[in-house]
């Protein structure tokens, strides 16, 4: 009898250890793709990584071909892509953040209303819409009526894609706040709007900021909706009504041109570091500004 109990407990210990190692092993496996991607991009992209990448616009196919013949590195950079990405993101931030935060406040404050349930499910559906479909819709709504591809159209399509994430993160951050905070504000005679603006939003700021940053990093590398809304440009453009370029669009263009192919890796490396940087920054902010 004693022996049975002993062997059974040993078996259970063995099983438990096996499970632990299996969990560790699979967790390790999830890191492999990221490291492989970074390694591959670094290996192939470092050759073109120089200052001109940030100061010059993208080269033409002819420039690249001449450089190739004379065995020199491809001239030019991706300045038009960097500025384009910044311009499009700025437009999408201006459009999506106020709308997303206000919607999030509404959902957090009226969690059970029928209208809230409708908005919540629509927002979830919006998140599931393929990005190219968003692009096509914005093409029909903005590009066609304006008779021009534009940074504005790109910004609108990215704003639509950012919205669900901002709404959800605002709602969740506000819901995390204790109810007593709102009651304390109202018990001092504060109006509803002043309690929301002066107490609830600042208290949830770290969550709102992090959520917005993650939404930005999520749409930063989007290519499909930009293909049909901003088109691309070989020059630096700051006019929101004109076609413009973006890093992700340049990667697509470089991919389609054998002469420019080496630039694919460098541009991808830069885009990856930008996205990773924003993610790490968002994590640090959320830790640092977390309300006690």
């Amino acid at each position, binding site marked *: 009898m004693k022996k049975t109990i002993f062997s059974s407990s040993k078996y259970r210990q063995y099983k438990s250890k096996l499970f632990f190692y299996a969990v560790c092993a699979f967790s390790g496996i999830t890191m492999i793709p990221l490291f492989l991607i970074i390694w591959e991009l670094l290996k192939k992209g470092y050759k073109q990584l120089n200052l001109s990448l940030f100061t010059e616009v993208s080269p033409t196919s002819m420039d690249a071909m001449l450089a190739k013949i004379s065995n020199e590195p491809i001239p030019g950079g991706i300045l038009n892509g960097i500025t384009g990405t910044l311009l499009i993101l700025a437009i999408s931030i201006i459009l999506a953040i106020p709308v997303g935060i206000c919607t999030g406040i509404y959902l957090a404050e009226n969690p059970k209303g029928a209208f809230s349930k409708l908005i919540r499910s629509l927002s979830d559906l919006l998140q599931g819409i393929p990005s190219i479909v968003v692009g096509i819709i914005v093409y029909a709504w903005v590009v066609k009526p304006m008779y021009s591809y534009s940074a504005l159209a790109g910004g609108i399509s990215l704003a639509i894609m950012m919205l669900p994430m901002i709404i959800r993160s605002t709602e969740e951050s506000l819901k995390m706040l204790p109810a007593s905070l709102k009651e304390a504000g109202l*018990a*001092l005679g504060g109006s509803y709007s002043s309690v929301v603006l002066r107490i609830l939003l600042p208290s949830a700021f770290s969550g709102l900021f992090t959520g917005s940053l993650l939404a930005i990093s999520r749409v930063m590398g989007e290519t499909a909706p930009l293909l049909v809304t901003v088109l691309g440009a070989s020059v630096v453009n700051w006019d929101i009504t004109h076609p413009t370029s973006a890093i992700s669009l340049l990667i697509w263009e470089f991919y389609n041109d054998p002469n420019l192919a080496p630039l694919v890796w460098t541009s991808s490396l830069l885009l990856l570091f930008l996205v990773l940087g924003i993610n790490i920054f968002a994590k640090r902010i959320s830790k640092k500004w977390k309300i006690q």
Partner: protein
Amino acid sequence: MENTINTNNDKYILELKNVSVAYTPEKKAVEDVCANIRENTVTAIMGPSGCGKSTLLRAINRLHDLYPEIQTTGEILLKGEDIFKMNPMKVRRLAGMVFQRPNPFPTMSIYDNVLAGYKLNNIKLSKSDRDEVVENSLRSVALWDEVKDSISKKGTFLSGGQQQRLCIARAIALKPEVLLMDEPTSALDPISTNRIEDLILELKEHYTIVIVTHNMSQAARISDNSMFMYLGHLVEYDTTKQMFTKPKDKRTEDYLTGVFG
């Protein structure tokens, strides 16, 4: 039952007439409470868990208005004026509240926490007036000497007892007529509890205090009058001395002697 403690020259600051609060139409948490509360007294509301003490207290500053499903009926007069006919924001300015758990605003400094009421009500003060309000309020709660050198630090860095005194300072900064306290010491250690109790006795000179407590000895120590509530009804309302020595109702006696609780 008319619950009025008769003394000469009575001046009632709060008059509760048939106050009922219902969370659902079938279930009343507080039923037909009538009571008059005199100025500059401490009134303790006692009773077992779920008897409606906090619900009654929160009816006095119309905090139930935040939850549309809660129905409050009856009449509550604050200085003779029906609070249900007043602007709720005004009611809450006149009836300050201190909650069970200390809840200083986490993004604000100690200084700004004390002035939060003014900011939320968009009352503009000059720098010297602001400094004066902060110093006076913090002195009233005996916190000034402890925090005067770290006044710009966040209120949440203080200890639990200090945070609760900060919350009292925040409530009295607006100079309310009545101070409602919902078990203000239940989350505090005995030393902090003692300080808050001493503070309540000092604040009585300037404010009328209504305090909910489940701690009978606390009610005995600090209150002038006591209410005993049971299953949503106000069973007995009398001077604390009378209630603790010769309770009129059997249920009060049973509660005070520990038969149930």
